[in-house]
Structure formats: structure tokens, C-alpha cells
């Protein structure tokens, strides 16, 4: 059987892996991200950061500190769009 509980769908990171990271001593979101790779896929954490925070809050009994740093871009953007930013029509 392949019943997996995906905490992070984009990078195929299971709830199991997050629990292993916790057992290995990684108790904050940033460390869990670095250990498991969760939150580094297509959605950049829109779905999974809060899911991970809830797991950590429950497991450790402590309020999570910071989320992983929300960095631009919010959605993937074609490099061509970024490259054309220097080529401006004044509005």
C-alpha cells in the first residue's frame, strides 16, 4: 500500500518525514525545511508552511516562531518577463 500523508504536495514530503526531522532535533520551521525540503517546491509554501506550523505547535506545545521567509516571486514568473523589466514604456 502506498498510503502517504503529504504535508508538502509539491515536493512529495510526507508527514512521516517531518516527524523524523522533529525527532532528529529540528524543532523550528526553518530547520525542518532545510532537513526535509518541504516548502521549496512549486507553491513555495502557500499550502504547507501553515500545515507544518500546526504540526510543530501540536508536537512541541509551543507557538511557532517565524514562517520561512516569504521571498519573491509569489508565483513562478518567466525569466523573459523579468529580463524585460529594464525595457520600459512609461505609463
Amino acid at each position, binding site marked *: *500500500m*502506498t*498510503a*502517504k*500523508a*503529504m*504535508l508538502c*504536495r*509539491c*515536493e*512529495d*514530503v*510526507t*508527514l*512521516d*518525514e517531518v516527524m*523524523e526531522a522533529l525527532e532528529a532535533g529540528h524543532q523550528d520551521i526553518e530547520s525542518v525545511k532545510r*532537513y*526535509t*525540503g518541504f516548502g521549496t*517546491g*512549486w*507553491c513555495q*509554501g*502557500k*499550502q504547507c*508552511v*501553515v*500545515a507544518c*506550523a*500546526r*504540526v510543530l*505547535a501540536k508536537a512541541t506545545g509551543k*507557538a*511557532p*516562531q*517565524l*514562517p520561512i*521567509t*516569504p*521571498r*519573491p*516571486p*509569489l*508565483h*513562478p*514568473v*518567466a525569466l*523573459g*518577463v*523579468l*529580463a*524585460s*523589466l*529594464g*525595457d*520600459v*514604456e*512609461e*505609463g
Partner: protein
Amino acid sequence: MAPRRILPTDLPPGSPLARRLAALGSSGRVTVEHDGAPVAAVEGEPLAVSLLAAGQLTLARSVKYHRPRGAMCLRGDCDGCLVRVDGVPNVMSCQTPARAGMVAQSQNAFPTAGIDVLRVTDWFFPKHLDHHHLLVKFGGALNRTMQVFARRMAGLGTLPDAIATFPRSESLDVDALVVGAGTSGVACANALARGGARVLLVDEREGPGGMRRDDPMDDGAYPGCDPAVTVRYGAGAVATYDDETLVIHEGRGVTVRARVRVFATGARESVGVFPQSDVPGVFTARAFALALCHGVLAGERVALVGDGLFARSIAATLGERVTHSPGAAVVEALGSRAVKGATLREGGREWTVKCDALVVDGELGAAYELAGQAGASVLWSDGRQCFVPESDAEGATSREGVYVAGSLRWGRIDHDARARDGAAVGARALRDLRGEGR
């Protein structure tokens, strides 16, 4: 049974959705192509909804295990509906309006997302494959071989068919930028414009209304924008830094300089984390409701869980067609290729339902990312169980000139409360612009 299109006559007479679908009529019927097969679509509806209506639950495969993926959120928050469109890889089909002759192909799968023999990876590693640590243990040549193997097996789409050209970018200078044209964003932009500020309001969607657009019980009477507000729809803010915000408007980059920025980006829905929560046919209640608003019933046998606004609207619209368990939680979804059922729990009781769509109105998360990029401090809220930008009574954040409004800061409050909040935040931002202090 599979997802299908419904007609106004399939719904109780007088239901807001029946009126909405009757107004849509049968205009704009076009044909798109998916993995070589023709698919009937309505021009302008999200491509993912067209594919869903044609019974295509599985649109993609996950990067590592090649597990089947389907539309889950229908609002650009997940990986479920990524396809190659007209030779361009990694297109979010939920964010792409269907146009006549569009060619969609599955990617990262062999031969198609519907079959994909590469799923053996999933069977080989029944618990999980910790490639971050496994692949670096061996060192040297074996490590390099493993990396090559992983690179071929995993990942997203391949390069585009052709070298694309991109339009020139645009640069705008305004007093205030409001991101999000939902109820609070529109009220905020109106308050700013009526006070004489030059306001730009942007939203990824094709019109105003925010979450109200996706509510099948909504009367559609969204508050309108004051004519003095400059509005861009189909325009998503993707980055903000200092006083500049990058907006992508219909494929073109727009750099907006604004003295004040208001984020009214709302909340994100999720289904939660449970075994098989990622299989096609598991939807957020908002996604299912959104498809319904386009006349598409995303399943014939619907198990609906949760008691939020969208769950209630779905239940009110479809009545006995759905099995609604407002107080239940999902223990696990059943099914490997697509959802076949679910185990639910309420109180001390556990039971199993059969379904071809599992619709969950789960916990919300504030869409804090842009406010966070702008420098607003973001804190954990115990009450809402999510990260929220810190703000005072009038929406001012820890960062000068950066404000938040609506569901982003309050969670899902009612329409009138969101409108009042937007107007109050707008009034505060106006004082800021006039130099009347923070």
C-alpha cells in the same frame, strides 16, 4: 460516474446558481485539446475547469513519486493542475482562461499523466524516500550516477518548444497600491480615491468580488469600484520591495511605485494533511464551489466535510446530491489513482463513506506572503492557527506605509465587516499620504 457539466434546470428554481448559469447561456463554446483528445470548453473559464468537466481528474504527476495530481485548490496555490500549454511548460491551468484551439499536454509523466509508469517510484518506497540524505551518503561516482538518475526521474516540465518574445514592461507611479479586489480591497481603494489619492487596484482574477465570485449562493451584487480608482484585473502582484511592487498583467511586467501599499490578499483554503489527501478528487470547498459557479459538478457522489461558508453554500445549492458532515474531520482518503471514499470521524465515532469527490472546508491560512515581503512583521496566531501580519486597529503594520485589510488580518468575517474594515484602513492610509502621521 465522473465530473460533468450541469444545466440551470438541474438546480432548484430560483437558486442563485441557476440564475448565474442561465445568464452564462451556451455562448462561447470552444474546443481545446488535452493529450491529443478534443475537450469541449467554455471560452474564458479556467482551463483546469474545462478539463475537469471532461472527466480529466488526473492532470499531472508529482515530482518525486509520480503520484497522480489533479486540481485541488483552483486558485494557484498548489501543484495539482500544472500542464504544458501551447508548447510552454508548467502552466497553472487553473489560472489560464480556455481559448479555442489551446493544446494542453501532461508533463513529467510517461506516457501521460493519466497512466505514468514512473509511478513505480511510489511503490518502491512505501514509506518515503529521503533523497536529501540518501543521495549524499555515498560520495563520488555513485553519488553522481544517482544525481543523473534522479534528475531524469524527477522534476517538472521540459523546456519550451520555441524561444518566446516578451512585451516591453510598464512603469506606473501612484499614491496608493491596493492588492486584492475582494470586498475589503475595493472598499479601501474607494476610500482612498474619494479622498483624492491616485489609486491603483490590482487583482489576479477577471473582476472584483474576491471570494464572492466563487460562492454559488452569492447574489453577485459585488460592491463596485469608484470611477476614480484605476483598476487592473488579470494582474497579480508577485513581488514587493521598498516602494516598488512587480505586477504581472496579462504576461507583461508592470513596476508600480506607490507611497502606500495595502494588502487585501485574503485567506487560503486547504484540505489539511491526512493519508491520501493528495489524490485527485480531493478538493477544497472553495475549489469545488468555483467549479460549480462555472456549471461544473466535480463529482457525482460528493462527500462534503466542514462547516465554513463554502461548505454551507455547496450544501444549500446541491441539497441531497451531497452527503454533508459539517462537524466531521477526515481520518484518511481512500483510493490510489483517484478518490474512492473517505474515513471520517466525529466525536468518538468513525465511519467510511464512498465518494468520487471529497470536498473539505478546512482550516484557513492568511495569505501573508506579500505583506511579509513588504517588511511587515508576521506572527503566529494561536486563535487562527496560522501566520498573520501584525497590525493595529486601522490596519497599519510594523512597516511604514504598509497596510493590511480584510480576511488577511481577521479571517473569514462577513461581507459588511470586511467592507467596513477596508474603508477604515483606506481612511488611515489617506491620513498617512497627507502627512497626518501614523
